[in-house]
């Protein structure tokens, strides 16, 4: 079996053979990502309505369904309306600490079967399998949003305690709740934020995956004809809370 030393040795050998003929430069990284990310945040705070408009346009153009509510108290009504449209009842949700609000009681009051994901690692295989079965059975998955990218209509979700990956993946309908603090304009800005998260461990959560979600699951593998909901959700809803989610 090839060892690391042999492998890298072969690479170094080849690298000696040519200095490279073409223009070469890595992208310029932010020198102080955290500070730059903070600057971006401050500047965006002033123009969030335009950013939201741009996000809505892009999100809708990739097939997302956009909703706007004044306060977080209005969210359960939207969720229950979506559930009724799907004749659905089973909902799996991020833990309230991850969502930034405890919507469980209000949702249950509207007749939904709410399964909140735990935010401590469950003990044992049996518990993990039970949670997986719930997510696999659920009709709706309710999550928060860490970044909403206006340029592309993308929702960025970081995994971690209380925010499992399956909530936005297994149920056929994904509902994401966010406010102006998640908005960013461009992929370039996202790069700065990601560097900041990585650099000083200030990511929203400590999980191993960051998922960029741009609309519902899709394929055009058969005759280049679009079909939605291949393996992931067939519908993605984004509910914007104007007055902000958390306290």
């Amino acid at each position, binding site marked *: *079996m090839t060892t690391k030393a042999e492998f*890298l040795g072969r690479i170094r050998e080849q690298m000696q053979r040519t200095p490279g003929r*073409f223009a070469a430069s890595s992208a310029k990284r932010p020198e102080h990502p955290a500070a730059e990310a903070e600057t971006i945040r401050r500047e965006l705070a002033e123009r969030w309505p335009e950013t939201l408009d741009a996000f809505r346009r892009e999100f809708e153009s*990739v097939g997302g369904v956009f909703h706007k509510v004044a306060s977080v108290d209005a969210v359960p009504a939207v969720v229950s309306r979506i559930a009724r449209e799907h004749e659905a009842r089973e909902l799996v949700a991020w833990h309230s600490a991850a969502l930034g609000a405890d919507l469980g009681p209000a949702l249950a009051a509207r007749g939904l079967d709410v399964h909140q994901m735990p935010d401590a690692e469950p003990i044992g295989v049996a518990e993990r399998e039970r949670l997986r079965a719930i997510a696999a059975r659920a009709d709706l998955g309710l999550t928060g949003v860490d970044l909403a990218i206006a340029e592309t209509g993308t929702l960025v979700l970081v995994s971690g305690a209380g925010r*499992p990956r399956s909530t936005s993946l297994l149920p056929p309908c994904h509902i994401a709740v966010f406010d102006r603090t998640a908005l960013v304009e461009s992929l370039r800005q996202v790069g700065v934020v990601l560097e900041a998260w990585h650099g000083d461990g200030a990511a929203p959560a400590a999980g191993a995956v960051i998922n*960029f979600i741009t609309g519902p699951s899709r394929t055009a593998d058969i005759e280049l004809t679009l*079909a939605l909901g291949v*393996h*992931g959700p067939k519908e993605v809803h984004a509910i914007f809370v104007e007055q902000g989610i958390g306290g």
Partner: protein
Amino acid sequence: MSAGELATPFRQRAGGAMKDAFLQEALTIATTKFIGLRREAFEGFPEGEALRDQARAIKEATLQQLDRHLETLIGNVERLGGHVHYAATPAEARSIIVDIARRTGAKMAVKSKSMATEEIHLNEALKEAGITPVETDLGEYIIQLAHERPSHIIAPAIHKTKGQVAELFSRELKRPAEADPEALTRIARGELREKFLQAELGITGANFAVADTGTVVLVTNEGNGRMVTSLPRVHVAVIGVEKVVPSLTDLMVFLAILAKSATGQKLSVYTSLIQGPRRAGEFEGPEEFHLVLLDGGRIAQIGGPLREALSCLRCGACLNVCPVYRQIGGHAYGYTYPGPIGILLTAMLEGAPAVKDLAHASTLCGACVDACPVRIDIPRMLIDLRREVDEKRIAPWTERVAFKLLARLLQHPPLYRFAARAGRVLQRPFASDGRISRLPLFFGEWTRTRDLPLVAPRTFQERWASDKDLRT
């Protein structure tokens, strides 16, 4: 009717592909659509050109420090609890992965689309070891059921009509299937959902590996990439060494142009940044993460003539615009990677003799360079491959003699003029109506479908030399 005993296997496959009416229609529709989508995406994206230049520069800069970036990547993956393996050859890669699979006790492995695993013929090795590989990308699932190989880098089943897919599903899955893409997709969703939930092992490739953070990046649309890397207990990612990029900032440059080049989307539906196995606090995600770094011929090109081809992002844009690919489709090329970049990759992975015919499967029109997000100069490298094939005497001696003769003729005007006079005489039996519509032997390759003009009664230079009124 295949054209003559001298026809190469490649030429025969190409001929067969052009007689396949289903394939021809599928190719025209698919490539035309992809071309339009890509064009629209870049038309509304003025920063695109600068980003393409930047992406190319990043790839080159990375190659210039590849050992350092790989060291950083390896260190980070291991720091996060992942394992790194080194595969010099496809056989070694297969052996590493089968070993991992055996140790996990997996009976089934779910796979997200990975050209690297196609390249190393992983599925056969898994089957032989008693592990069932299940392709979960819809296009790959279709061709797996059909026992075929992908015909396009990003749309593997594009050569199949919906009728053919319906018939395939009915036959293999033993259930009725309507020839409607949405209905067929629903069937695949149902069949594969169970597999995702049961499999112990998930195998993927990756579009990028970020050195600075130890992150592998999967760019997908269906959601199977997320399933495969979140539900099974073990995740194995196989990547060519050239997939590494230095930082997250670099990554964003590529993300800004990759999906646009491939399908015209601003971003694919799912871009997953995966940093090792699951962390404390997560109850989902793999317990084990393995990264297999694959050489397979890539390393030799770091200092070699096909170095530029190491920048390939596997977007498929060059296939869609290639006049040759558009006529013959992917299978006719006969190797894992088809189309313009496929010829270069085949040379890289299998050596120059493998492409002695494929190197000529190009009009050198340059549409591929125009479409390539990192501006790989494919025609230049094809010419270099042709040169290698000539210099290593892999090309047939008859051809080499003919070209040397041509070279002699073009350096000696009296010979050139003699050839013109000879041509004028020899063409007489075949000339009619001011042109030639039939020629014998090898020259019939032209005249079977096209006329040829006659060698002029007097060449331009002959007229210039003798007609005084032309000169003044």
